[in-house]
């Protein structure tokens, strides 16, 4: 595009001393939450994305509403790594409270854009400083006090546009995506961009090496957060009953779903809805409603996070044992207890897999990208109805609430699978209705739903025989729970298959799941490039596991399981399933401080465990990597 070409051409020459760093650095905007910087950050992110440069955007925000420090980080990476990277090269310091510390945390040669009044240039001398008189510049744009606060942030976008070479017109396109047809708002923001750009052009001499240049790497991809992606999946899955209770970081899943449903699932003529969304009084009620709806034949769901999961135990056990479908999204945050509500973790693996008392186990899906949030959401409803049981989709805060580049979503290839719901034809074929009879040998019985004219049954969480009659008989009980186990076994081959990449030269394997994937992808390249360590890779996409898992481990001497929790929860599940000989090959790489896992952490950890390095760094000491899995 000419526009960006021009921008590039006009860019001042970098300081002679450093090589230009193109499309391979992170920009961190440090602000205060509630100050309205989100728009500016998303516009910047999207503009870079639109320039074809691989990006990812992560927001680290506090668990309050306004006034506390927040960091938004945009990672640009020409090689397509979109996982978290700890180091930041470009800092936009808007928060007086953290500005000094943020500046001190930078590596030498980083650049800092900041409000001139903060005088950050006195803090260090090894950085490139760009002071900006924000207040004065804002005053040029608007006198509206309320607007000023917001507009202020667009100014740094303008400054960065000039300094880094981000196309202003792409920013305007991004602005339009953000504000739709609010023409005035767009114009005002564009004005702020221009003011920032002009200021930088006139007053800031480029002395840093960081540049954005157009690429063609993002062809066809979209930029979206995982919760919105899951919401689209739920809508496309044909969900009809949604019951939820607000909780960070899951709220936006249902809230976005409501927006989409209102837009696309209300009858144009009658104004009537082909769905119902209920904000329940709590998570117990939310799941109860989903179960009631599932029993009555609707596609139903709820979405929550850890504390909600902990409350849902009893109802999940009911749905498991009475065999009622329901889809449960768990957008994980840091526990235990209230924990860190705005930080990410993969800490609910065990609590969801074994949720509820008695012998229970539940299928889990592990999306790693918005695309998988979408496709697994679609899939989850099919699975829940086919298997007549709760199905969990384990997302996390990082995936759910951050901006990810992802493959565009494909329209469901198959029609909805409503499972074994009794109709006249089926009844004739199977001869006799027994709600809990295993007619097909797969452990999955046939069910009838209220309001149709098929035989009824009394659904209950207490002991029952094949005909759903109350029973306390030992044989009825055992036959039933053995069938449930058979059903669970049947799951293995119906759930999303793992993604496996075998490297024939590798003696070492890596296993990961969910968002950990992105750091592993990058770490594998680091291991190869830095230590010539070849690795194979296995990404779980569901529990219970496939038999491929054992084959994968068999091929390798040591297999690192990388996860974002303290207790090696996935390893615990795997040990339950694997021959001990294979379980013996598992090692853990654990990361659990609330921040997203990054490639460097994995690489360093594996290199130490593999004996490439012996010393422990200070950071490592914080992570006793075998805590919780240590043998006797």
């Amino acid at each position, binding site marked *: 595009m000419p526009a960006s070409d021009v921008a590039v051409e006009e860019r001042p020459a970098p300081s002679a001393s450093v090589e230009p760093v193109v499309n391979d650095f992170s920009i961190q905007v440090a602000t205060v939450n509630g100050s309205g910087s989100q728009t500016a950050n998303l516009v910047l992110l999207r503009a870079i994305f639109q320039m074809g440069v691989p990006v990812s955007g992560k927001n680290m925000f506090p668990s309050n509403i306004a006034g506390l420090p927040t960091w938004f980080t945009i990672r640009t990476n020409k090689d397509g790594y979109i996982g978290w990277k700890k180091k930041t090269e470009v800092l936009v310091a808007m928060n007086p409270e953290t500005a000094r510390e943020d500046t001190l945390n930078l590596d030498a040669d980083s650049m800092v854009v900041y409000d001139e009044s903060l005088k950050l240039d006195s803090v260090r001398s090894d950085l490139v400083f760009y002071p900006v008189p924000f207040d004065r510049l804002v005053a040029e744009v608007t006198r509206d006090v309320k607007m000023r606060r917001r507009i202020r942030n667009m100014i740094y976008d303008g400054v960065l546009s000039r300094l880094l070479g981000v196309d202003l017109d792409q920013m305007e396109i991004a602005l339009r995506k953000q504000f739709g047809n609010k023409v005035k708002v767009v114009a005002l923001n564009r004005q702020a961009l221009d003011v920032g750009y002009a200021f930088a052009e006139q007053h800031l001499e480029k002395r840093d090496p960081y540049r954005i240049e157009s690429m063609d790497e993002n062809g066809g991809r979209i930029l979206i957060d995982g919760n919105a992606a899951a919401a689209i999946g739920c809508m496309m899955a*044909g969900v*009809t009953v949604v019951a939820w209770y607000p909780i960070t970081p899951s709220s936006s899943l249902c809230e976005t779903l409501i927006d989409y449903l209102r837009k696309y699932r209300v009858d144009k003529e009658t104004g009537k809805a082909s769905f119902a969304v209920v904000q329940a009084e709590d998570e117990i009620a939310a799941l109860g409603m989903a179960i009631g709806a*599932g029993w009555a034949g609707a596609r139903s769901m709820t979405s929550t996070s850890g504390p909600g999961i902990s409350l849902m135990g009893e109802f999940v056990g009911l749905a498991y044992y009475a065999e009622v479908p329901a889809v449960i999204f768990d957008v994980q945050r840091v526990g235990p207890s209230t924990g860190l509500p705005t930080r990410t973790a993969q800490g609910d693996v065990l609590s969801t897999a074994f949720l509820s008392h008695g012998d229970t186990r539940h299928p889990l899906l592990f999306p790693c990208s918005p695309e998988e949030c979408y496709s697994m959401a679609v899939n989850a409803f099919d699975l829940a109805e086919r298997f007549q049981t709760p199905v969990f989709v384990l997302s996390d805060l990082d995936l759910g609430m951050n901006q990810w580049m992802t493959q565009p979503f494909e329209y469901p290839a198959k029609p909805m699978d409503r499972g074994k719901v009794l109709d006249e034809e089926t009844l004739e074929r199977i001869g006799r209705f027994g709600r809990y009879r295993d007619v097909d040998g797969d452990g999955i019985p046939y069910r009838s739903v209220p309001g149709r004219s098929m035989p009824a049954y009394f659904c209950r969480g207490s002991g029952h025989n094949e005909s759903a009659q109350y029973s306390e008989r030992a044989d009825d009980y055992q036959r039933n729970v053995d069938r449930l186990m058979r059903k669970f076994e049947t799951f293995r081959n119906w759930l999303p298959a793992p993604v496996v990449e075998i490297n024939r030269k590798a003696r070492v394997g890596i296993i990961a799941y969910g968002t950990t994937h992105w750091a592993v992808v990058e770490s594998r390249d680091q291991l190869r490039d830095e230590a010539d360590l070849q690795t194979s890779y296995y990404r779980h996409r569901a529990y219970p596991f496939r038999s491929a898992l054992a084959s994968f481990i068999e091929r390798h001497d040591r297999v690192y399981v990388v996860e974002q929790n303290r207790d090696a929860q996935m390893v615990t599940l795997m040990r339950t399933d694997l021959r001990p000989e294979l379980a013996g090959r598992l090692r853990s790489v654990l990361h659990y401080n609330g921040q997203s896992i990054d490639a460097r952490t994995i690489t360093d950890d594996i290199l130490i465990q593999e004996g490439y390095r012996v010393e422990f760094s200070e950071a490592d000491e914080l992570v006793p990597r075998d805590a919780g899995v240590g043998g006797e």
Partner: protein
Amino acid sequence: MATATQSLKKKKINRIGLELPVYRGSKTTLCAGCGHNAISERIIDACFAMGIEPTQLVKLSGIGCSSKSPAYFLGSVHGFNTVHGRMPSVGTGALIANKNLVAIGVSGDGDTGAIGIGQFIHLMRRNLPIIYIIEDNGCYGLTKGQFSPTADVGSVLKTGVVNDLPPIDTCALAIQLGATFVARSFSGDKKQLTAILKAALSHRGTAMLDVLSPCVTFNDHEGSTKSYAYVKSHADQLEELDFVPYFEDISVDYEPGETQEVTLHDGSRLYLKKLAESYDPTDKMQALGVLHDTHERGEFATGLIYVKPAADDFLTTLNLVDEPLASLPEDRVRPSKAVLTEIMESLA
């Protein structure tokens, strides 16, 4: 004589051509004489008499002796015996999934008043169209007779333990929270309970019925305020109820001063001839006042206590398409490819 025989014969088949046994359930496993069994009988009677289509009925319950009872009526009807105290949410989900269902929920005073009081409150508040019956014996029958939150101050357990916490008046709560049909009755009052059940089946919205239902095993002794004898002698019947179903062409003569006519959602009419107190059951504060006054006297006001025949129920508020959500075909719930493409473009 002739009419008697005729009416006997007529009784055998209801308006939709079904016989009474269709409405029966399996053999009760509750104690002989348990009030809950009598209530089951009345539910059978009322559903039969009103000619409710069994395939359109659902019955729901929590956990307790009371909550077991749905197994003992309407045997050919779908039912869900859920978990303790959580029948309201399951019922809400089921009715949203299929708004054509007629729902009867059965709970106990423990199930509702203790663990389930939160869901109870929110169901009332939503005015969910369900008949919510509390089989109220002032104790936890199934766990062997501990006090429940509806036990009266001073009521005595068999073991001699005296209750010292005030009872929750579920009728007063329901009225305050938005239920649109609130009644109290007694398992031993066949006539009143049947009339109330029929009226409840004609109502659209939450019909909350607190039915005093003595636990003959654990709470039927001297000193208990929920014993059969105590309830019978302390039931303060507010009105004589005459129910005329919409499908019967009967006109009733009444003196307007004493008797109040209430037309219910389906066109059925209820005639209330005031007995003990004179008040207007469509007036919230008067209804609460009656409950308060009778309670102060140590009595139970029975009858229709509050009714608001025309209020939007929860399903109406949701503004759903006409067909039950549960049976919408794929093309009505999965948007077209064009929609997905449109969304994808907005995110590219």
